[in-house]
């Protein structure tokens, strides 16, 4: 389990992180989102034990990062942003070095390295010098490094960076397998929102060092009620129903209604209620064949929660 409690970090007079708290349980994937400079990498550096927080505390697998840093780091696999490995080493040499550095017993080093190479598709690259690897393979090497010693918690800073679409899909599958089948707690930051949406169980959005929102995407959609939209599939009378919805006898709370052939796209106001709309339709209209609540995409949520902060500044 990864736990951060009221983490703050100051760089001189600049507050890079302000009382950020969250937990990632075993078997859970938390997507860490935020615009550049939001404090994502700073949080991950703190959780990796590389940097201390200015205040607050954090723990990995129950070990406090400040009091018992070594034990915490033993339970952690960390992929830093823009991962780099010593360029003069070969892939196999580097992974064997890292396995020994992480305290893997001598007898198990070769097996662990082979397993990680296989998992990340690096079997054929064992003898290749790291400086000659493509960016995608360097990223895979960083992931293989993070998985060495089979840590229960993983911190991945921009793991999708530098990967082609096929590699992204493979990584998505790998993360899902690691969390849901191998019960690992995974915290990863990313700018690739569709990937986050399809992989993360929960998202945590940071902006200017503060938590904007934390929760699963469905919960966030409910929080973003003014973004709620309903799609109505009709057999006939789209124009007539549109007029009814917008009339004084309508359910109220409707911002706009767009006619799309025989269908309607209804955008609700912040005070609009989907149950009220449903009730009104049930009593007033017989031609509805399909009623679908449209959830805002993660990208819309992200923009909403980070833009709201900009407005309040």
């Amino acid at each position, binding site marked *: 389990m990864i736990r951060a409690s009221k983490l703050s970090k100051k760089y001189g007079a600049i507050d890079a992180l302000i009382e950020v708290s969250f937990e990632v349980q075993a078997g859970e994937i938390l997507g860490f989102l935020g615009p550049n400079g939001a404090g994502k990498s700073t949080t991950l550096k703190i959780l990796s034990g590389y*940097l201390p*927080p*200015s205040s607050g505390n954090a723990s990995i697998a129950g070990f406090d990062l400040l009091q018992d840093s*070594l034990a915490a780091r033993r339970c952690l696999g960390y992929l*830093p942003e823009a991962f780099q490995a*010593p360029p*003069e080493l070969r892939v196999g040499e580097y992974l064997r*070095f890292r396995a*020994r*550095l992480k305290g893997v017993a001598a007898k198990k080093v070769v097996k662990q390295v082979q397993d990680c190479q296989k998992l990340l598709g690096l079997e054929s690259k064992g003898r290749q010098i790291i400086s000659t690897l493509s960016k995608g393979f360097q990223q895979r090497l960083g992931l293989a490094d993070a998985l060495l010693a089979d840590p229960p918690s993983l911190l991945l800073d921009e793991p999708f960076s530098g990967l082609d679409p096929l590699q992204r899909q493979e990584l998505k599958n790998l993360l899902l397998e690691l969390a849901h089948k191998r019960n690992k707690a995974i915290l990863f930051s990313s700018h690739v929102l569709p990937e986050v949406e399809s992989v993360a169980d929960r998202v945590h959005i940071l902006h200017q060092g503060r938590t904007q929102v934390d929760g699963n995407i469905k919960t966030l959609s409910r929080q973003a009620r003014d973004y709620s939209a309903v799609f109505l599939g009709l057999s006939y009378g789209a124009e007539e129903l549109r007029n009814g919805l917008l009339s004084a006898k309508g359910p109220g709370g409707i911002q706009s209604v767009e006619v799309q052939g025989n269908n309607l796209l209804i955008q609700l106001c912040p005070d609009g209620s989907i149950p009220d709309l449903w009730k009104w339709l049930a009593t007033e209209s017989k031609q509805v064949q399909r009623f679908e609540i449209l959830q805002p995409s993660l990208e819309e949520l992200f923009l909403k929660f980070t833009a709201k902060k900009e407005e309040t500044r």
Partner: protein
Amino acid sequence: MIPFLALFRKEMFSLFVSPFVYGLLAVWFLLNGLFFSFILGFPAVQNDLNLFPQYLFGSGLLVWLLLPSFPPLLTLRLFAEEHRLGTLEPLLSAPITDLAVVLAKYFASCLFFLVFWLGVLGLFLLLTLHGAELDWSRVGGGFMGAVLVSFLFLSAGLWASSWSGNFILAAGGGAAINFLLLFLPVLFENAPGNLGQISRQMNIPNMLDRGFAMGLFDSYALAYFPLLTLLFLWLTWVRLVSRRWVP
């Protein structure tokens, strides 16, 4: 212990596969060969070969020029390169203590620097093969003093290397510290009062020339170099752990 040995082995390996380090070795061997043959030509040395270790290890260019310059060139990559490449973060977030990181890098550089000295030892063996009768207690003492000084200069170089990812600062800073350690005591040894007294106690060429290179092992000198070395290793460790200090 396992993480320490893993890092030590990796550092040794990285030194052995570095073309830059081989270039350093080549220049070191070339210059030492030149100094060696140059000193052999001195009339005083030709009259009494026992003076040879004193000229080479005590008052020659080896001590005044090469010893302060080469260790920082070897250590500059140990931290500065990791800073520059961005490999320090994965290293320091691994389950290894900061002290083990400092010591593994330091001992690897010390062991590798012995290769530098093996070449110089080879020149003495060559001399013996040609029939020269050497006083091996003086030669051994000279080597011991030189090795202790180089280990001290390696620790200063390591500290300079930990400052930033700038190679010029790492190498230049390390060399500057080493030259100050050599020259300042010599400059102030005749100063009145405590300054002169302290300078005479810290005079490294004197310790080599009138001690080690004469086959004399002074307990003060034997303690002086390791203690100063420990000071620089401690400063390197402080530099490393300072990132964990809460601002």
